[in-house]
């Protein structure tokens, strides 16, 4: 995790906590992922479970974070929900209930009807995610033609409106332009316009700001936040950046080696991070209030040091709190303590709260201090969009 990424955190205390945006949890989930498994099987290679029994819910209008290091299965989870994984070499099992229908049981045609209309997705690299030889207006308009039965000309007019709504100046000209003529931030805005064109009830954003400049990151995040709260769209925010989580998410799932290892409401997670892995992620965020010379403490080892979940805790080889049980029994995802039934944890020897407090890690304030420029950036973001970088 880099300093720059945490600096991109927009306004930390407004946003997701605000009434209305956190969605009504009583109404039943919009999306319910249950025991999702994704197995890659290639000839000559051991079958590999990239997602190994992930379950989580997303309420209407709620923003849920999927957090974890590279390779923990965030993208594969989201692609499985969208049914965008290549069929022959992957096996997806479990349930993905969307408004009560299991998406995994739909025919390909039925799923095609829903993608882009009921649930949509944006990706990490805006340049490669856009077709280089098709004008932007056509790329936005084709969603409307497909799902709303609009004529080409009407779709183009609407496309210009949509580009305007995501803060792209001079949309009438931009709809005739191509991806290479836009800046990185503009491209991601255009992709957001495409994704939200049909007002889907769920948007999945897979590290939408990782490929962008720091200042642009903040703008895109605040744009996403205002659009989802205006439209009442639920959002699955995939990121490895806890700063983004702090600024955007209502609830957070921390993933490790294809499984959820900790889940909590945002404030709870930052105030009482209990899993050694979550704790490690927080400790590796750069802090502006850190004494000069004080080192960051990255999590030791790398994702490749995992042991299989069937042999105990996958994180054990990297864990500082490992005890004998950790390599004998696989930890289950259970409520952390009775008083907070929403805080789930998969660990035999969780981090005690007093240690968290002693290390000064408790509370979103820690992340907030790490990204105190955020407020400034956020103000910049609400002003005119990044026109300066408009053409490259």
């Amino acid at each position: 995790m880099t300093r720059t990424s945490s600096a991109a955190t927009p306004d930390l205390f407004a946003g997701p906590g605000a009434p209305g945006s956190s969605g009504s949890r009583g109404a039943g989930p919009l999306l319910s992922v249950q025991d999702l498994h994704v197995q890659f099987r290639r000839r000559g290679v051991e079958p590999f479970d990239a997602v190994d029994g992930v379950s989580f819910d997303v309420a209407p209008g709620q923003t849920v974070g999927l957090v974890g290091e590279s390779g923990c299965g965030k993208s594969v989870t989201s692609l499985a929900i969208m049914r965008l994984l290549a069929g022959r070499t992957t096996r997806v099992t479990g349930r993905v209930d969307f408004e009560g229908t299991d998406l995994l049981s739909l025919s390909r045609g039925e799923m095609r009807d829903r993608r882009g209309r009921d649930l949509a997705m944006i990706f990490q690299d805006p340049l490669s995610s856009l077709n280089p030889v098709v004008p932007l207006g056509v790329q936005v308009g084709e969603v409307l033609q497909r799902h709303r039965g609009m004529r080409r000309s009407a779709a183009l007019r609407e496309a210009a409106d949509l580009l305007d709504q995501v803060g792209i100046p001079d949309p009438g000209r931009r709809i005739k332009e191509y991806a290479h003529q836009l800046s990185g931030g503009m491209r991601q805005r255009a992709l957001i316009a495409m994704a939200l064109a049909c007002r889907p009830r769920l948007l999945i954003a897979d590290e939408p700001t990782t490929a962008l400049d720091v200042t642009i990151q903040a703008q895109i995040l605040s744009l996403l936040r205002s659009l989802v709260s205006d439209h009442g769209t639920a959002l699955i925010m995939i990121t490895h950046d806890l700063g983004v989580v702090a600024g955007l998410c209502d609830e957070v799932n921390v993933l490790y080696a294809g499984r959820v290892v900790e889940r909590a409401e945002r404030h709870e997670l930052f105030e009482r991070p209990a899993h050694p892995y979550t704790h490690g992620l927080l400790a590796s965020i750069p802090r502006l209030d850190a004494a000069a010379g004080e080192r960051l403490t990255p999590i030791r080892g790398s994702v490749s040091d995992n042991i299989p979940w069937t042999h105990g805790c996958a994180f054990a080889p990297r864990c500082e709190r490992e005890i004998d049980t950790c390599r004998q029994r696989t930890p289950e995802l259970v409520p952390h303590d009775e008083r907070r039934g929403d805080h789930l944890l998969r660990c035999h020897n969780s981090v005690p709260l007093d240690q968290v407090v002693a290390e000064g890690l408790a509370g979103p304030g820690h992340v907030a201090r790490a990204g105190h420029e955020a407020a400034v950036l956020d103000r910049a973001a609400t002003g005119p969009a990044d026109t300066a970088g408009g053409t490259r």
Partner: protein
Amino acid sequence: MLRYTVRRLLQLVLVLVVLSLLLFLWLRSLPGGPVTAMLGDRSTPDKRAELTSVLGLDQPLMVQYGKFLGRVAHGNFGQSTGVAPGDSAIGVFADRFPATVELAIGALLFALVFGIPLGYLAARRRGGWLDNAGVVTSLLGVAVPVFFLAFLLKYIFAVKLGWLPPSGRQSPDIDATRVTGFFVLDGLLTREWDASWDAVKHLILPSIALGTIPFAVIFRITRSSVLDVQNEDFIRTAEAKGLTNRTIRSRHILRNALLPVVTVTGLQVGALLAGAVLTEKVFAFPGLGEALSIAFTKKDYPVLQVLILASATTFVLVNMLVDLSYAVIDPRIRTS
């Protein structure tokens, strides 16, 4: 775009100048020199002396080259000595040019109409039976010599089965009106449908023989290009938008995948003349390729000069067109 076109035209002129120099030196290096080249071996000494002074061969080399260029610029290559003795070399070219153009168009149509769709399908069902069959066929297509394939097609479909005519451009019993020299087109212009259809039938087998290598190349390029493009992020975006297979295929995959196909097709056009020599010979098809092989065996140097210059010009022109069309279809080139 305009500056680009002008630059390419200047390049064309440069290529032609260099080529004419090579041609000039080649003619001088022939046994007996250009006089033999133009009069043939069995000419009288008197005539040789006369032509030597007419051609200015007793003058300095630079002057000779200048005169040579002047003749080339006027299309004055002398008279054919072998292909159509007595006719001007340029006239021989003009007579036969439409035949070869028709054949080349037929061959390219065959290559494109089968190469692109099959290449696309093979890539989309990679490892399927169509993919495997296509890859093997395209390997065979490149490996089998053109004349052998031509003989085989002629033997099976013309001689044994009698479905199609074995040779020529038009059946002798058809009395067609000539307008442009392009037989298929002439029939359409004069509404002599049977003449057009007859010309088409004469084109089918030679077109397949000549088009097989371009087909194989286009099939393989399309296949590998589609394989690349279908893994691009923007295809995933298109899928995430729920677009129909049709839109994804035409707008997102093919529009990108065909860019390299355009380049390769241009290169194949250049290579067609080589194949036309063999194809036209087998099918006794009176085009430039046949003229080239006759001119070689009969040492018809005036005709050879025209053909060499013409094929080089075609090659350069076609590649120029390809580059220009590339700029038209790829906005990244057009707008930068």
